[in-house]
């Protein structure tokens, strides 16, 4: 991950428990993710967020919907370094 072709997406959740529940579900679905501190540009929250590749979004949606877990928001990292909110 990181320098790959597919842009990065950051998923924000409601609290650490939900982040770890999401991580568990995404791992079960074989979605490659990383836990990162929530980017300051997104919220001033001191919690964790899930980072994944945009190409994994359909599978991620499917896995999270099955639990169900609804992220608070999803954001695509632009080449400018800014984030753009995307629907999840």
């Amino acid at each position: 991950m990181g320098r790959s072709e597919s842009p990065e997406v950051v998923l924000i959740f409601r609290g650490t428990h939900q982040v770890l529940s999401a991580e568990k579900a995404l791992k079960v679905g074989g979605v490659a993710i990383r836990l990162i501190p929530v980017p300051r540009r997104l919220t001033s929250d001191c919690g964790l967020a899930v980072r994944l590749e945009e190409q994994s979004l359909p599978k991620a949606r499917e896995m999270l919907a099955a639990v169900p877990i609804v992220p608070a928001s999803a954001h695509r990292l632009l080449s400018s370094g800014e984030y753009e909110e995307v629907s999840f």
Partner: protein
Amino acid sequence: MTVPKEYIYLDNAATSLPKPRGVAEAVAGAIGRAGNPGRSGHALSIGSARDLFAARERLAELFGFRDSARFVFTENATGALNRAIKGLLRPGDHVVTTSVEHNSVMRPLRRLEGAGVSVTVVPADPTGTVAAAEVVAAIRKETRLVAVTHASNVSGAIQPVEAIVRAAKARGVFTLIDAAQTAGAVPIDLSALPVDMLAASGHKGLLGPQGTGFLFVREGVPLVPLVEGGTGSRSEDDHQPDFYPDCLESGTPNSVGIAGLSVALAWLLKKGVASVRSKEVALISELLEGMRQIRGVIVYGPEDPAKRGCALSFNVGGADPGEVGRRLEREAGILSRAGLHCSPNAHRTLGTFPQGTVRVSPGPFTTRKEIRACLSALRGIAPG
């Protein structure tokens, strides 16, 4: 981990000993690496958050509920009961409870009584068991909560919680079960039992360290947090988060204890609570059977072992229970608990107030040999 070999530990109703293999090691391991869970993004903070997450998932599995977020960690059953009772009841509300509750239910209720909550205490029968119909009959239109213990810590009597919960629910009344004496020892399935809240210790039947407990809160219970503070989530907002488990878990938790609890829960999941239960019923049967044959020994609570948890109260003639407890320890190394067991009303119900009783309570690691040693010591103490 074993109890020092000069002792026979029969005080599992107070706290369980020994703990399953690996619990102490998990606690020791966690103290060396437990970062503040969910507070920082670094490896040791995340590691600690994962310990909590794993323990929560195991609790949910053990109690048959799909959403582990509804299991809130507390410092003990008392902390869980206070959060449930004080978080729900408001002036003008009415609550129904029983005469066999522990002080961790009664004292919060008595305090709220002074603040405009009315309390009905339904008396139990002489075995320490309440009738579901009497509890239900005490429900009024302003009744907000029915709070009942699953099994008495004095008589051992298992209460008809299923019937009570269903009837209260049908009347739109919230329910709270104090499962301090049953969690991990008697199967509880929250997918079948529609109770709204369930409180338990982590350090009794769940076999974890002291300083752990939990409160289960079903969706739709409008519980107001008793304690607000830092949760690691939504730090930009100076209002308490409204989502579980964060709304009820402020401040740094006992991650170290919970790491131990997690290992204990894994042990219970593997072993199966039903198998722990059948072992303990066999031990209690042997104790009951043996005690009935000792002249002068009076046993309290239901005669049928299937109707009791693991707490077994008795007296030896008119002897002071404290003295009997001391003799059991001195003469046979048997560790019991004498007195009122923080439950004065339960003793009034049994007719054993104020002198109390001697209580023995086996656990999953108690052996039949230990039960026989206890009976033999009692034969030596009883006047004959």
